[in-house]
């Protein structure tokens, strides 16, 4: 368990956060730019000092203002991946990595060789750091942070300086860190795409305060989160289980709640755990089982609640047997269908608009 309570004033900005998350896992500190997310990780790293608060990781107290405990940054055994990589320019890539390894105090769980292989750095070891591309720099920075044998890895918008293609180059490595090394991570970002790919928990920060926190599933339904990510990204993130590829359609059958979806994704072993994003704008609600439609997926469920979304539309939460999903429908349509809590409905989704990501160890 990671617990953080910290208060700090900086000029006119004041920060007062408090959250706790299970370890291991990836907790995303998510919020708009300038909300104080980076300050939080700097406080956690010990690079900034809170005026008051307390921080513990698995029972070890790292900071306690009341008890006068403040473990210095260099002895916290936290890895830190900075937005701008901060590789040492006077050292080659291999010396940058050894710099961290030589000073690692905690029990070693990864070797230099393993990290080099994991992050595909074999060809870069003798390079000077200014000869690296942006994506390569971040991979080296991640490797360097890993070699401190961290009890917790802090990442401050590590992909923010990269374009879309370079991000895709680095993201899979972070998933491997989460799923195979099971390194606990605190991941700062303002890009919901990264939250969707990486986070197991979300701490939502706004104007220096935590406004919501929880596991990614329930958080995907949260109204504060919806306001920050904007209407087009709103949608339930649910857990699915791969059942195998349908021999006729070549689509992957995925169990979600009590129903089943057919999605396009790379072949996975049956039983693999998947994260499925169902965007509210892509879901059609029907009050009877439809026929003669191209839609491949329909999930039977009951309306769990209806909230206003904007002037013309509302968000309908549908319980599909243990999981909740969100559908955006116009108020006019809702009235015509007579949608109300408890009503039996079908949620229709096109296979091509479902996004899935593997979570957990690769088969």
């Amino acid at each position, binding site marked *: 368990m990671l617990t953080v309570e910290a208060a700090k004033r900086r000029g006119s900005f004041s920060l007062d956060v408090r959250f706790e998350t299970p370890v291991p896992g990836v907790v995303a500190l998510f919020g708009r730019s300038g909300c104080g997310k980076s300050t939080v990780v700097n406080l956690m790293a010990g*690079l900034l000092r809170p005026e008051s608060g307390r921080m513990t990781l698995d029972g070890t107290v790292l900071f306690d203002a009341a008890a006068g405990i403040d473990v210095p940054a260099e002895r916290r055994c936290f890895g830190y991946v900075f937005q701008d990589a901060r590789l040492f320019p006077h050292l080659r890539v291999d010396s940058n990595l050894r710099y961290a390894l030589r*000073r690692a105090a905690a029990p070693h769980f990864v070797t230099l060789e393993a990290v080099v292989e994991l992050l595909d750095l074999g060809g870069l070891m003798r390079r000077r750091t200014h000869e690296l591309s942006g994506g390569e720099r971040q991979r080296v920075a991640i490797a360097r942070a890993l070699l*401190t044998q961290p009890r917790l890895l802090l990442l401050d918008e590590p992909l923010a300086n990269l374009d879309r293609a370079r991000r895709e180059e680095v993201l899979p490595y972070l998933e491997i860190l989460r799923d195979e090394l099971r390194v606990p991570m605190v991941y700062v970002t303002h890009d919901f795409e990264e939250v969707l790919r990486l986070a197991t928990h979300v701490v939502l920060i706004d104007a220096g305060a935590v406004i919501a926190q929880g596991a990614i599933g329930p958080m995907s339904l949260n109204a504060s989160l919806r306001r920050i990510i904007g209407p087009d990204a709103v949608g339930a993130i649910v857990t699915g289980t791969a059942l195998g590829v349908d021999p006729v359609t070549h689509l992957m059958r995925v169990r979600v709640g009590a129903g089943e979806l057919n999605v396009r994704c790379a072949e996975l072993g049956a039983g693999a755990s998947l994260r499925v994003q169902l965007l509210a704008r892509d879901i059609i609600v029907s009050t009877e089982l439809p026929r003669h439609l191209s839609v491949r997926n329909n999930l039977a469920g009951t309306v769990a609640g209806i909230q206003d979304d904007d002037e013309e539309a509302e968000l309908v939460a549908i319980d599909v047997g243990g999981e909740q999903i969100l559908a955006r429908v116009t108020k006019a349509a809702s009235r015509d269908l007579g949608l109300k809590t408890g009503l039996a409905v079908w949620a229709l989704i096109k296979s091509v608009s479902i996004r899935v990501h593997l979570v957990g160890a690769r088969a």
Partner: protein
Amino acid sequence: MTWLDPAESAALSLSLVVAARSVIFSLPVAVAVTWLLSRSRFVGRPLVDALVHLPLVLPPVVVGYLLLVIFGSRGLLGGWLSRMFGIELVFTRNGAALATAVMSFPLMIRAMRISLENVDRGLEDAARTLGAGALDRFTTITLPLMLPGILAGAVTAFAAALGEFGAVITFVSNIPGETRTLPLALYTALQTPGGDRAAARLATLSIGLGLLGLLLSEWLARRVRRLLGR
């Protein structure tokens, strides 16, 4: 160097020895003072800053006089140094090195300070998160990254030390073979009837050394910058 007479080549080698000692002994002090001036906040920092830069604006004769007052045989420190360690500074080449060190100190500090202020504090923070303590960070990150400034400071100070006149002649006089460095030899030649040719040779030599120093410093700076990837 057959075109120099023995006294002139003695002046040349003495100048090099004095300048080298001056730079070697002032370098570590300059690094420490630079760090104090730009990284720590203490009461009286502006005063220390001003004192360090004073030789830039004072007449060199005043510096030489102050050195006599402090390090002369009846001076505040001179007598003690002589009794405790047998170190004599007045009328010796070590004294000449001290005088040139004091005079070139501000030049050294200025070059180093710019490069220390250009060291990205973020890299030091990164080293902290990798487990490096304060001294470790200074020696493995800060010092190598301020190397261009240290080298530039050392070369500039060396060149200035070769040319220092007023403070040297005031503090340690003009003794052939002991304190008569190039500029002092040049001055002596000018005062001697028929010394015009010697003066011309010594002046040419000074210009050559100066040029060499500047070219060397430029070359070093380029190499180090490439090493640091800038």
